[in-house]
């Protein structure tokens, strides 16, 4: 395993923070305390962390509607994010974006996206910037198994291949596009679609942080060294439904139990590092408790924060009339 102790701690901290953030949003939303639509990332944490831990601050990512995990993994501040979810003036986008449009360009986070398949075309541009300016940065575009059927994904993979861009496409395949199964909606294999465009394409177990991390490290280093784009097909599962309020009646009870008990990336990580004697259980529990406390503070502060006012309505856009 090519990962040191400090990085292991960072990985678990990140995954716990994502878990606690979205678990808290789940409860807040159910209690009617939060406006809008939210889509939760619980169960997919190893993907965001395994990939983003191979990125630096100047690398960029474009996310999906299920974007909180990517934001946290890329270093966005959880309190500013939470304020955004509550629509507050000091939110990360001034309360103008909300859950589906969280962005923080200073952290290289080019935005969650309310359009399925909307992000990957944008990372082509970031990757073009790096190629044109001759930096060794890379850009990562996340999308789901549902988006894999959008033309924008195929067009983006082809363009990245034609122009040899430092672009990494990450298909986070949680098995469901809204309520429709991957088995129904995806013709052929997602992996083969990457190969068809000439991308270095890999399938990884998204519940296993180490597998994601190692494969991502390989393709990201290659992209930095001018070897062109790649596709990672990350097979994972999500605990909650498509959106909050989804009764998930399309999944069986057994499947829900299996996802929670056997496919939990945090449990798997904990088991692996303690069995290998790399980290101790009490350390891991402390990290989790700290994450929980941090999210509680984020929620408390967000609830107290001010809403934007009429003065904010017409700013940040060209307007004369």
């Amino acid at each position: 395993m090519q990962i040191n102790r400090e990085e292991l701690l960072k990985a678990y901290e990140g995954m716990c923070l994502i878990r606690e953030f979205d678990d808290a949003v789940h409860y807040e939303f159910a209690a009617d305390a939060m406006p809008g639509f939210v889509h939760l990332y619980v169960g997919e944490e190893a993907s965001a962390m395994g990939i983003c831990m191979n990125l630096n601050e100047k690398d960029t990512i474009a996310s999906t509607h299920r974007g909180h995990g990517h934001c946290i993994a890329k270093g966005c501040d959880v309190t500013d994010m939470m304020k955004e979810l509550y629509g507050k003036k000091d939110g990360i986008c001034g309360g103008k974006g909300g859950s589906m449009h969280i962005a923080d360009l200073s952290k290289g986070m080019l935005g969650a996206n309310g359009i399925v398949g909307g992000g990957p075309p944008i990372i082509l541009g970031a990757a073009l910037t790096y190629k044109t300016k001759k930096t060794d940065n890379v850009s990562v575009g996340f999308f789901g198994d549902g988006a894999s059927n959008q033309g924008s994904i195929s067009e983006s993979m082809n363009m990245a291949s034609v122009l040899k861009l430092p672009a990494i496409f990450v298909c986070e395949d949680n098995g469901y596009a809204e309520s429709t199964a991957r088995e129904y909606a995806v013709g052929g294999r997602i992996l083969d679609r990457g190969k068809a465009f000439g991308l270095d394409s890999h399938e990884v177990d998204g519940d296993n942080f180490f597998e994601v991390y190692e494969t991502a490290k390989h393709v990201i280093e290659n992209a930095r060294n001018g070897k062109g784009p790649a596709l990672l097909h990350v097979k994972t599962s999500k605990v909650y439904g498509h959106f909050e309020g989804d009764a998930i009646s399309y999944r069986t009870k057994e499947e829900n139990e299996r996802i929670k008990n056997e496919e939990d990336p945090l449990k798997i990580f904990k088991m692996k590092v303690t069995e290998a004697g790399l980290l101790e259980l009490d350390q891991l529990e402390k990290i989790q408790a700290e994450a929980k406390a941090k999210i509680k503070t984020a929620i408390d502060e967000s609830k107290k924060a001010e809403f934007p006012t009429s003065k904010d309505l017409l700013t940040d856009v060209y307007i004369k009339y």
Partner: protein
Amino acid sequence: MSLKTYREAINEALLQEMQKDENVVIIGEDVAGGAGTNGEQDAWGGVLGVTKGLLKHFGRERIIDTPITETAIMGMASGAALTGLRPVAELMFVDFMGVCFDQILNQTAKFRYMFGGKAVTPLTIRTMYGGGLRAASQHSQCLYPMFTHVPGIKVVLPSNPYDAKGLLIQSIRDNDPVIFMEHKNLYDTSGEVPDESYSIPFGEANFTREGKDITFIAMGQTVEICNKVADTLKKEGNSATVLDLRTLSPLDEDSILEAAEETGKIVIVDESYPRCNIATDISALICQKSFDSLKAGIKMVSPPHTPVPFSPPLEDLYLPSEEKVMSTAKEIL
């Protein structure tokens, strides 16, 4: 100053801005042409030759030929603008917006507002529009009302070579996404254009004729139609004002109201489909803000609400013309 075509003026604006700022890149289909072939490089320079000759100055790293993949072109240009380049993306015909509008409508137009003012998206999209080339329903539309409807993007319609150069330079330097629309019938028209670089600010309409009997409000190709009608009217003893809007978003409301109040008789000439177009929008504006100055009902000259027909006699019947503008003017003079 020398005589240049609309096509040459646009080419010169691109050349000068690319020389000035190395972050400016051109992205599109066949913008150089000949990519991957053993034949001529810069074979096309854009389908109508507007970007011809730029390849030898800037190479394929900055004149980027893409596959036919409009969604990826618009997405790539938007993402590049978001991360430090100043791209000029070419959408060959505005009609093709149908296959890539999401990247404009939901992505680039929204970044600045949706991200709380932290995003800058200096993107210019050059595109061809308009009828007259017998190009039929899928290669002749105007569609600028659709873009004008969307907050966050600016819409520019140069009517002559001088404006084309100055407005394109302004578009490239602007930090918001701009749709720069070139009427394909104007490429071979010529006019005096300064050799040096200059820009024309957005939101400043241009009075191309000043008169007191009737006001024509026009945009893009319809400006020249209105100028000719105004010149004919002058010989007949009526003086007409012609206002060239230049930019539809931002819109120069002050000049529109001034032009309306000068004569109280308004004809708006707009080549786009007649429902919810620029003519209806301006008509509503004048009625709301300057109703008392009107001496007659506002008149509009637009095509009928049909797709653009192919057959030459049908397309001629379809498009606004000097004859239609003249007869409409005479109804209220």
